[in-house]
């Protein structure tokens, strides 16, 4: 049994002009000690998937179908209070914007010790020692000295690392990291990636890594899910999805990324843009932009099908 099982997760936003379906039957598992990368363009539903799992959907968004099981227990229908206890203790979260995650009025030491003491019996001195240890691990220089500083006294990169320490300090078994390195410079990003990888290796922590940066995924994740317009287009081992993508969208996505290794005259581009939620095409959602579209794609929506090493939602891989 996987640590996190997401099955047919569907999220809807009711509105005056009808209901928008932002996630449509998203299914995947994450095993303990595994890093699952979730990639896609803005609006594909990657952040929303993370938010729905931990019960942080913004109203009027709601889970309209499917289930989320964490460690065997169903969590998509938990009342707010048990859900709150689960978050922070067993599921840690890292959000993109470090400024809104930290409380500007408290020192970071207080925020760290408070988090740890909420979830475990620790004396003040123990909590403080552990907090310094965490700041040290995420690469804050002179941690013992900086622990009494306020968030505004740190640089953006350091603040993001404090947020990461905050997410990890209660020893969660699952971490949902939403664009954890996007606001950081590459040299700092490399430090954070290494930290996340060490963590899964040493503690068996599972990570759901949401990012738009394929390079980060390539280096960090074990498996990757490529999302498009609220659905998973392809999911599989990271090397397979990057080197031999089975879905035309993942294929186009990989080819459109400029490479450091060799220079090409023209990047391959996917023409057009992802459809808006109120204008989802019939059949496969990618069909208007797909270079390999055929009749069936315009009529029937494909589910995830076996496509060699990966699973892809594409009729090219239908064998019936």
């Amino acid at each position, binding site marked *: 049994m996987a640590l996190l099982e997401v099955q047919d997760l569907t999220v809807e936003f009711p509105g005056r002009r009808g209901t928008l379906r932002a996630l449509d039957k998203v299914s995947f598992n994450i095993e303990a000690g595994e890093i699952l990368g979730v990639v896609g*363009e*803005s609006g594909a539903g990657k952040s929303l998937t993370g938010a729905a799992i931990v019960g942080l959907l913004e109203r009027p968004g709601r889970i309209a179908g499917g289930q989320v099981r964490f460690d065997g227990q169903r969590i998509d229908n938990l009342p707010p209070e048990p859900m709150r206890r689960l978050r922070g203790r067993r599921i840690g979260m890292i959000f993109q914007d470090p400024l809104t995650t930290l409380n500007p009025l408290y020192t970071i030491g207080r925020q760290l010790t408070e988090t740890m003491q909420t979830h475990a019996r620790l004396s003040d001195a123990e909590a403080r020692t552990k907090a310094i240890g965490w700041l040290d691990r995420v*690469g804050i*220089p002179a941690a013992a000295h900086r622990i009494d500083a306020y968030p505004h006294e740190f*640089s*953006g*990169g*350091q603040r993001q690392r404090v947020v990461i320490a905050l997410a990890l300090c209660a020893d969660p078994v699952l971490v949902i990291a939403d664009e954890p390195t996007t606001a950081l*410079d*590459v*040299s*700092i*990003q*490399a*430090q954070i*990636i*290494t930290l996340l990888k060490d963590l899964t290796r040493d503690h068996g922590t599972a990570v759901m890594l949401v990012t*738009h*940066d*394929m*390079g*980060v995924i*390539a*280096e*960090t994740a074990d498996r990757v899910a490529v999302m498009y317009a609220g659905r998973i287009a392809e999911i599989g081992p*990271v*090397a397979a999805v*990057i*080197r031999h993508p089975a879905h035309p969208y993942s294929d*186009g*996505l*990989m080819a*459109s*990324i*400029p*490479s*450091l*290794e060799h*220079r*090409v*005259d*023209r*990047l*391959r*581009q*996917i*023409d057009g*843009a992802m459809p808006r939620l109120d204008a989802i095409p019939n059949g496969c959602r990618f069909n208007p932009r797909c270079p390999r579209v055929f009749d069936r794609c315009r009529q029937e929506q494909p589910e995830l099908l076996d496509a060699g090493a990966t699973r892809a939602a594409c009729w090219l891989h239908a064998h019936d």
Partner: protein
Amino acid sequence: MPAQPEPPVGCMPMTKLKVLEAVAVSHYFDVSRPFLQRVFTREPRRMLRAVDDVSFAIAPGTTFALVGESGCGKSTIARLAVGLYAATDGDILFENQPLSSARAQPALRRRMNMIFQDPYASLNPRWRVTDIVAEPIRAFKLATGSADIQARVGALLAQVSLTPRDGEKYPHEFSGGQRQRISIARALASEPDFLVCDEPTSALDVSVQAQILNLMRDLQQRLGLTYLFISHNLAVVRHMADRLGVMYLGRIVEQGPAEAIFRAPRHPYTRLLLDAIPDLEQVGRARTPVGGELPSPIAPPPGCAFHPRCPLANARCRVEKPAHTTAGDVQVACHAVAEGRDA
């Protein structure tokens, strides 16, 4: 202005023809506290050296790219290059004429334009796209009469793969990639030869980024444009640049032909940057991250600003600012490279 002749094959592009040249340019920002506070607390004035003694030249029809991490001064150079800031020290020359007088010379001003990073903030939401694109045409009186202006706007929109009908819409009706196309159409409206592109694709998704980068390359070939291209993304820079400057804390630490630098980076910082970038080709690689932070540009470390993070630093690096040494066509500011300690 006489037409620029094509550079003969094999000629060094640096020697004669240049659209833009920066000669020992510095730009300082005064970040001192208010005067009275300074007097009472006896604080000295504090200067942020955003750009410190930077020199480069861009040949016509080529792309010069600047890369570096946040705060290294690359956007300040972008602003200096179009005359939005005046240099504290040194000269910016546009076709051998000092740019400080650009304000007084609309003819010079017309020939350069800028594309900004954020396509959501750089277009006036209250204006129709037609008016946005027509503004430079009206400002420089490149066409008179609304029919004439409309025709030009239509042609410009077609050039960036939008339709003339899109001119009737407002910016909010477009996606990020389409807005960046509008920005490019506006930048081209004054028929410039030189465009400064400050992170033009970093707010865009990768598949859209590919569309915009391809468009920019096409336009460069078709119109013979010269680009100063600013980015923090080395892969994008590799795709676009003919020549490259790597910036660290306000200085260019390495510059030369992009191919040469990517093939054999010399400066330890360039190597660090190239090594730090996660790349698709390196699935699951283990790495040894470089520790340390970018120091504050208000109080940069003495000597070589990179020495606290540099694996090759020695006593000389801590006290003496390295000068540029030239090897082949690549200039590097590093004692270790100059002394041959970098092997």
